[in-house]
């Protein structure tokens, strides 16, 4: 855990002559440095301009500009609220069994060899961050105990800015980057990515996005995955896959999970953090899952018992509400069809927005390449704007992007599209 420097007057042991009680106990507590994302959000919140546009949000926004609740989910919540068989029992620390079963199946495919051979552990977690945290704790405590492993963990450049903090909070200090997004190419530079992983020490953990990479939206192709998995196997690296928005990238559960299934089919050991918040519109419900694919069935029970122990001192057990909804949908073929329909609608809208935005850029004659907008999938895309240009957008045009120039495609709608396109154009053409 990184410690801020402490100066002589920050040491807290002085005896203050305060007769009424203690001197404030937490005088040394520094005001936490605000993350760029938070700064952005508060700037947006303080912005009183009617025209402001927030393209940095994490949720899927409907055309009306609100986080989207799936109709089916609303119906099921109603049903569940009147279900007399649902008891307010403590769930197991590893979560609802039916949920973990379904979550495992959607990631690996029902007939996955790993499932059949009973060497898969599934743990329900209160959200995606919690899944990553649990995976990190498992690795820190138990990955290669004989070698006293303590890192490094490789994250893509760029990546979700909370990932570093999560691994460090779990006690893994050494976090490194591997090259991923190339601004010039407006896409992944595989060559440099492979170079970085090639030089990673054996037993490094590599965090890879399975689909809908956040924040760039740029995903590895199947042939690129084949090359990477060969390298991972050869260099004895450990894959930790991220699957936060399954089905929202290609509109297809299986296609979005292909990398997970590919690694498993090669007999690899892996962790995969999943979230059902996005694809079910259950943001507030914290529905996450950590998948552990192990090489042997014999280690399943020990690993599960250790996962259980870790969970018990973190959050004890997950919350069940959202998990019930997801399980209900995934276990019923009629619901499944209805849900897939709604998801398809979300995906098609995102693809349409990408296409329209790209077309606008072309019509405006905006400099730079915009093909990548339609080559990518999912909620996020990287515009390639630099820091200055991103600031221009927020300061002068009240259009808020993520600090790295990435934006949430779903937040664009027919009311703000022109303004946004114009703004990006200005950012790139005004002399700054």
């Amino acid at each position: 855990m990184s410690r801020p420097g402490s100066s002589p007057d920050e040491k807290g042991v002085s005896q203050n002559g305060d007769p009424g009680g203690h001197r404030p106990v937490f005088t040394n507590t520094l005001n936490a440095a605000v993350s760029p994302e938070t700064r952005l959000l508060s700037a947006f919140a303080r912005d009183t301009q009617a025209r402001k546009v927030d393209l940095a949000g994490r949720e899927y926004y409907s055309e009306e500009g609100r986080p989207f609740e799936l109709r089916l989910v609303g119906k099921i919540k109603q049903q569940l609220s009147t279900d007399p068989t649902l008891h307010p029992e403590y769930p197991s620390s590893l979560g609802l069994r039916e949920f973990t079963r379904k979550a495992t199946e959607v990631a690996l495919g029902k007939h996955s060899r790993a499932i059949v051979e009973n060497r898969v552990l599934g743990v329900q977690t209160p959200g995606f961050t919690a899944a990553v945290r649990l995976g990190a704790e498992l690795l820190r405590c138990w990955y290669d105990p004989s070698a006293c492993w303590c890192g490094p963990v490789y994250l893509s450049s760029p990546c979700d800015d909370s990932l570093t903090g999560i691994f460090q909070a779990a006690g893994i200090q050494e976090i490194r980057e591997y090259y991923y997004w190339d601004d010039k190419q407006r896409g992944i530079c595989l060559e440099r990515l492979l170079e970085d992983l090639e030089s990673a020490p054996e037993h490094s953990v590599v965090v890879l996005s399975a689909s809908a990479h956040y924040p760039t939206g740029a995903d590895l192709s199947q042939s690129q995955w084949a090359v990477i998995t060969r390298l991972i196997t050869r260099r004895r690296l450990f894959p930790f896959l991220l699957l936060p928005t399954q089905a929202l990238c290609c509109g297809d559960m299986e296609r979005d999970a292909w990398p997970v299934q590919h690694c498993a089919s090669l007999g690899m050991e892996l962790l995969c953090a999943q979230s059902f918040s996005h694809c079910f519109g259950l943001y507030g419900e914290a529905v996450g899952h950590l998948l552990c694919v192990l090489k042997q069935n014999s280690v399943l029970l020990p690993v599960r018992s250790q996962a259980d122990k870790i969970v018990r001192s973190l959050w004890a057990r997950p919350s069940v509400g959202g998990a019930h909804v997801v399980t209900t949908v995934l276990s019923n073929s009629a619901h499944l069809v209805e849900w897939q329909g709604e998801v398809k609608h979300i995906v098609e809208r995102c693809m349409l927005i990408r296409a329209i935005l790209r077309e606008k850029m072309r019509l405006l004659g905006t400099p730079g390449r915009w093909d990548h907008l339609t080559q990518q999938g999912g909620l996020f895309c990287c515009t390639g704007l630099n820091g200055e240009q991103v600031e221009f957008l927020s300061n002068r045009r009240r259009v808020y992007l993520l600090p790295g120039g990435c934006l949430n495609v779903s937040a664009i709608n027919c009311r703000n599209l022109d303004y946004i396109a114009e703004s990006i154009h200005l950012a790139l053409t005004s002399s700054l």
Partner: protein
Amino acid sequence: MSLFSDVPQAPPVAVFKLTADFREDTHPQKVNLGVGAYRTDDCQPWVLPVVKKVERLIVEDESLNHEYLPILGLPEFRSAASKVALGDDSPAIKENRVGGVQALGGTGALRIGAEFLRRWYNSVNNTATPVYVSAPTWENHNGVFADAGFKDIRPYHYWDAAKRGLDLAGFLDDLEKAPEYSIFVLHACAHNPTGTDPTQEEWKQIAEVMKRRKLYVFFDSAYQGFASGSLEKDAWAIRFFVSEGFELFIAQSFSKNFGLYNERVGNLTVVSKDNENLTRVLSQMEKIVRTTWSNPPSQGARIVSKTLNCPELFEEWKGNVKTMADRVLLMRDQLKAKLQALGTPGTWDHITQQIGMFSFTGLTPKQVEYMIKEKHVYLMASGRINMCGLTSKNIDYVAQSIHEAVTKVQ
């Protein structure tokens, strides 16, 4: 070869193993007095009527947004939760020096508080600061503080087995001898597992030493309302400490008093010296939460918040809580009466003197073994029973079993 080949099997948690054994037992008269969850007289979990009502209101509320909750949680939940602990007219709240962090149950609240203290209490690195937990205590206290990074977790005297009550002298002695600035985990009421709470006079003595020795107060409050049936009575110790000027943490759980075991509703109430301190503390709490679960689940917090913030629902809830507390009190009375009627050797006053869900019966490990193996009555090796596991249908059998255990087994 799996990279996890050398991972050892972790020992099972005693109370869950007990429940698992109970489940497999086919004896028709088996009774589970292990796990700490409320049961009705039909031995069923109970959805509080007010909770059912509020759940419907929530499901039908079109205006609710479905966004991620803020990292620190639902604001109206946090303020209502802190208010319920500190009281409506709490000067600390009026002085704007009270904040809350929504957490995943009481465990989550403890963990966030522990993580914060390890980083920021007293100096920047507190892994060596002693953390004192009562002997005995809820066994997860050890796990939470250890995993938060504290290396020195010590017991303080609490339960006097001989007199079946509080070992006040031992407790005060430990307070006197603890290094200054040590952290003490106190049970706000309905001590788990003993059911034995300090009296108001005893709390005053404890507070006096803690203030003088500059010890940090971390309350665990999982049973407010559930212990005596009165929210105010059960919060007396907390409110007293706050009125004495202590800065402190309170890990609150709404699992039991709302029957929301599976929605994981907790709150870490922070009482600071002033608003400026509070702001800084909360900013660091946010960082810690961000790398643990990032955004807490909304369902449970919404239910509790709606209930606490609406006068009619609040009254209804208090009534539901009293229903649960009253049933426990009834079972205590009846168990003691039956044991006395049977002429079971020993005194059984402690059963009605103790408070909350649990009772430390005083049964020895051998007697407990007898209860489980011969009578199929499941209780913890410590002799702890969950009063909620008793019903009008099984109380005679349980009393009889205790009688046999005490008379046949030493």
